[in-house]
């Protein structure tokens, strides 16, 4: 090509630098790839070795159990409406667990967030403490708190609600404080200048700004918490998860019941998912 002759000499350093960079990058990305592949492969082998069943053998039987459920549900299709009807009261309990824990959790989370946001905190010195507190609440799996509380309070919805509420408080505490950090401080200062107290500044200056975001996150949390409360039912915390577990573990003979409960649970999850998705979409894009 005609232009290749130009300027080749003056840029020798540049070339070397760039070629070296390419080499280095290839090396890094090669190493990273090898490391990742090695982790995946060896991880899989360890999991395979420590598992009772074999992967290749199991994959061919993957639909055995679902097939049993479907067979039995079809064979006793007449029972299904009854099972679905019976599943409604525990379903309401599950939804109540989720709703209460979302409500209380987000309220606590809101307070935690206020206490851990610079510029808003009533006690700025304790910000670090409250941040750590949110982290810890977030890190402890719900099942841990739920099981301990079941021991003290007995089985039922309350331990689950408390466990999920605490986890929600931690999670929303972090999210909300991120929202708070983006809040405009000018209105707060405006309110401070008229002699408003801390509560007034927060309720009138901050809350109106952050409320839509809070609400959107709370809805997302509610969606997650419905699942969480269903899961905690598996360890004795009541609700529909408890019914599902009992039917499922009894196995053959009650699989039609399991199918009925499962249909109810699944429909609920999907309905709340879609609903909250629509509302959240409207909150973020709708009235802006």
């Amino acid at each position, binding site marked *: 090509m005609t232009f290749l002759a130009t300027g080749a000499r003056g840029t020798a350093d540049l070339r070397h630098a760039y070629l070296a960079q390419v080499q280095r990058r290839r090396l890094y990305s090669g190493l990273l790839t090898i490391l990742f592949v090695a982790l995946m492969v060896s991880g899989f082998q360890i999991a395979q070795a420590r598992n*009772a069943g*074999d992967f290749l053998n199991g994959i061919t039987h993957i639909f055995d159990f679902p097939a049993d459920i479907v067979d039995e549900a079809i064979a*006793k299709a007449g029972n299904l409406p009854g099972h679905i009807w019976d599943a409604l009261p525990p379903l309401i309990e599950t939804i109540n667990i989720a709703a209460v824990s979302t409500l209380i959790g987000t309220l606590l989370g809101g307070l935690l967030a206020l206490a851990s946001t610079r510029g808003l905190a009533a006690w700025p010195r304790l910000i670090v403490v409250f941040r750590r507190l949110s982290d810890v609440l977030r890190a402890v799996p719900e099942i841990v708190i739920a099981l301990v509380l079941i021991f003290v309070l007995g*089985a039922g919805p309350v331990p689950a609600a408390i466990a999920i509420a605490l986890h929600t408080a931690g999670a929303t505490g972090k999210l909300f404080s991120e929202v708070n950090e983006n809040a405009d401080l000018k209105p707060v200062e405006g309110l401070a200048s008229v002699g408003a107290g801390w509560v007034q500044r927060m309720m009138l200056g901050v809350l109106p700004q952050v409320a839509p975001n809070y609400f959107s996150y709370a809805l997302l949390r509610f969606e997650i918490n419905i699942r969480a409360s269903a899961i905690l039912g598996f360890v004795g915390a009541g609700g529909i998860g408890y019914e599902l577990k009992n039917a499922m*573990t009894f196995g053959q003979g009650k699989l*039609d019941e399991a199918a009925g409960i499962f249909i109810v649970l699944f429909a609920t999850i999907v309905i709340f998912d879609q609903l909250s998705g629509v509302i959240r979409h409207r909150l973020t894009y709708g009235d802006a």
Partner: protein
Amino acid sequence: QEITEFRIGLLGGENAQDRLANNECLRTYVEEALGVPTTLFAPADYNGVIQGLLGGNLDMAWLGASAYAAVYLADPEAVEPVLVKTNLDGSFSYFSIGFARADSGITALTDMQGRRFGFGDPNSTSGFLIPSVEIPQITGHTMENGDYFGEVVFTGGHEQTIIAVNNGSVDAGVTWADGLGAWEDGYNSGALRRAVDAGLVDMNDLVEIWRSRPIPEGPVVVRSSLPQDVRDTVTALAENLYATDPTCAYGVAAGDTAGFTPISHEAYETIIEVRRAQMN
């Protein structure tokens, strides 16, 4: 036909770590005898072991009678009972014990009308299956909520039932015990005894309100599709365990035992019928 590994399933009742620890000696013996890597699995509940056996992913397990019935009903070809644990007195049965708090005033099942009753695990023989059949014969009503009992719940396991009764979360519940020894000790073995030993309950606070007919101990089962020589080897090993290593046998059997004796499917036919009757 060759096997490349041997997998033993352990039923709940103790925490997973202790189960693994108590059966470690058995694992070593089996590994030596078969010459293949042997692993212990401690699923969280009865169902984990049942599914493992049904899926062909466990080769051997010690089941409860009801859990064996569950496997048999789902797939009669899956496993075969070979041994059963015998008590010191030579029997191989135990009891489902109904109990309540002493200060509740409840002394018999007839005092339980309209109150809360607690089962354990749905796959437990003494914690669900047998009482669910025998108790209605006494009360004359089904176990449905509100029919005789105000509410019937599953607590999830024997330990949870004891705590629930002691707490008052349920008014009465059922759990297992060998029925030997004294009530005040929580009998010689069983869930009550363990709770007493752990300092969780004081037997003075509890009363027995019902006792089932003797329930056969669950069988040790092996997977039917294993090669015959493998089955023979492990069966012989378990059968002789008490003679060769009593300490190990104590751990494996979770208490004092006279050893394991051979048993066959026929011993469980009644239980299987009972379980079949529980299916809807």
